[in-house]
């Protein structure tokens, strides 16, 4: 288990690996990948129980990346955690490859659920959590939703269900980066106060800075301590965070970019990485 400082280092390393993964293909869902790397660092660096050499381990914890287009960030994380070698990241979107644009449990070691049709991860995550409980396993299921994804009605069917069935082994993150494909969520289809919505459905709800690994880590541990209710953690994030050509750009859901742009962004992240390492007491 890593310290909060080490998790921040891991997050920046995931960010660089994600940028390099996207570089192989020259285009991709960069905005929503950048906004969740701190959460992935916390999950795979601190919280989740897994064995990279045995991805199918029954009683592992599971992540459902319901915003399946953020696959590249997950792939970078899984590779860093030993599920597959870094060279495989070059297979992103390669025909016949093992790393499709959206997550596929049958292609990529370590991916726990196939996703990409938005809203559906809510229900499959519930199925996993419910099944683990039926099996008597103490495994937890983590679910990562996009805020635009919460336009989908199926999300709210699941929110109602998880509370009714007291799924306290399900922790749901909402990547509240305020942007969806066509623009700002408030302009496209406003999801309003996400925390109030989950609270109204009877969930234990927390709001954190989604780029602060210490805050995310504390929120997850608090969520797991809740009994008899599912937990939501609203991650206040910035779409494209930490990638200098994507952050703050309105149409950053899916972008194409040059190698030079990626190199520039990576150079920027390296500065942040050095600072994170210094803060964590690691050598630069």
């Amino acid at each position, binding site marked *: 288990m890593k310290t909060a400082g080490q998790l921040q280092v891991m997050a920046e390393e995931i960010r660089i690996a994600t940028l390099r993964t996207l570089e192989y293909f020259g285009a991709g869902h960069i905005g929503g990948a950048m906004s969740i790397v701190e959460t992935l660092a916390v999950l795979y660096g601190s919280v989740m129980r897994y064995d990279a050499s045995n991805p199918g381990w029954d009683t592992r914890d599971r992540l459902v990346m319901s915003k399946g287009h953020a696959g590249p960030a997950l792939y970078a994380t899984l590779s860093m955690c030993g599920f597959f070698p870094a060279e495989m990241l070059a297979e992103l979107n390669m025909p016949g490859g093992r790393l499709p644009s959206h997550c596929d449990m049958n292609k990529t070691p370590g991916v726990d659920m196939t996703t990409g049709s938005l809203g559906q991860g809510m229900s*499959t995550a519930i*199925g996993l959590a419910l099944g683990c409980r039926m099996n008597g396993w103490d495994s937890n299921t983590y679910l990562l939703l996009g805020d635009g994804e919460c336009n989908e009605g199926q999300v709210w069917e699941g929110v109602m*269900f998880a509370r009714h069935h007291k799924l306290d082994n399900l922790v749901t993150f909402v990547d509240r980066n305020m942007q969806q494909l066509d623009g700002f969520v408030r302009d496209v289809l406003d999801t309003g106060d996400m925390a109030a919505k989950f609270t109204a459905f009877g969930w234990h709800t927390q709001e954190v800075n989604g780029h602060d690994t210490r805050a995310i880590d504390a929120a997850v541990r608090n969520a797991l301590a809740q009994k008899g209710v599912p937990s939501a953690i609203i991650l206040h994030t910035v779409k494209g965070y930490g990638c200098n050509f994507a952050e703050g750009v309105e149409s950053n859901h899916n972008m194409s970019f040059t190698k030079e742009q990626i190199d520039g962004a990576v150079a920027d992240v390296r500065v942040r990485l050095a600072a994170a390492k210094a803060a964590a007491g690691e050598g630069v």
Partner: protein
Amino acid sequence: MYTTLDVCETSSVMMRQAYCETLCALAREGRDVVALDADLISSSGMRPFFKEFPDRAVQCGVAEANMIGIAAGLSAVGKIPFAHSFGCFASRRVCDQIMISAAYACLNVRIVGSDPGITATYNGGTHMPFEDMGVLRSIPGITLIEPTDPVMTRDVVRKLASAYGVYYIRLARKNVKAVYADGSTFEIGRGALLRPGRDVAVIASGIMVSEALKAADILSAEGVGVRVVDMFTWKPVDGELIAECAAETGAIVTAENHNIYGGLGSAVAEALVKSGPVPVEMVGVRDRFGQVGTEDYLREEYGLTARDIIGAIRRAIARK
């Protein structure tokens, strides 16, 4: 092996009873079956299962899309889920969830869609699936089954507890005509040959099987040899048997309680053009919506009687 009854009379048990009893038996045997329902336990007859096995019964409320995803997730941790709703809502309403969460993800899910076609009677047009099999047939790898009577229902449900994949079971809920003797067993994906005639072959499914048998009996008095096949698996359809029927009889009639577009007639025709076409006549719903009525009224309204099959047989033979 299967044996047909000499006379098709109304079954002594309802289809839903056969379904529920089989799932209960499987659960008692220690099989990891889980039943899911969308606020229709009273309709699906699953109360006994929910009562006896509360820990493997999942009430999802009126939220079918969520139910299918949950079933998919459950199967990913080893459960054997059977998820029920009325056929309309277990197919067209959740098409993408079946496609992506279940089939594309290569998971292990059984979906039971009840009240096929006119058996929805007084629930009317919104609840009367003439399209469920057609909607689902284009999902890669899915298996589509319409059990004919309680005996077949028991056998199919039991077999599906040991199968792997995505299965849709089009299940009448109430009494139907009993066709098979107790203990009959079937092979999913293989049609059941019920009558050996050589002048024409009727390929039927569901409630149309007993009508086809009735038509065959009537025409046999005229010396017309009508072969009858129960094609309870619509996908993968038994192309070998269809080809054999075409080669040996020279004319085919299909009979289904479903829209002829995208249904059994379409599946049989697709198989036939590959093996050597013969005249085909289709008995089924001719691209219409459902409506309220008794089953007898709706049979007449949509042309799903033995008389309609006889008319189609005469036309098919005339075209030989």
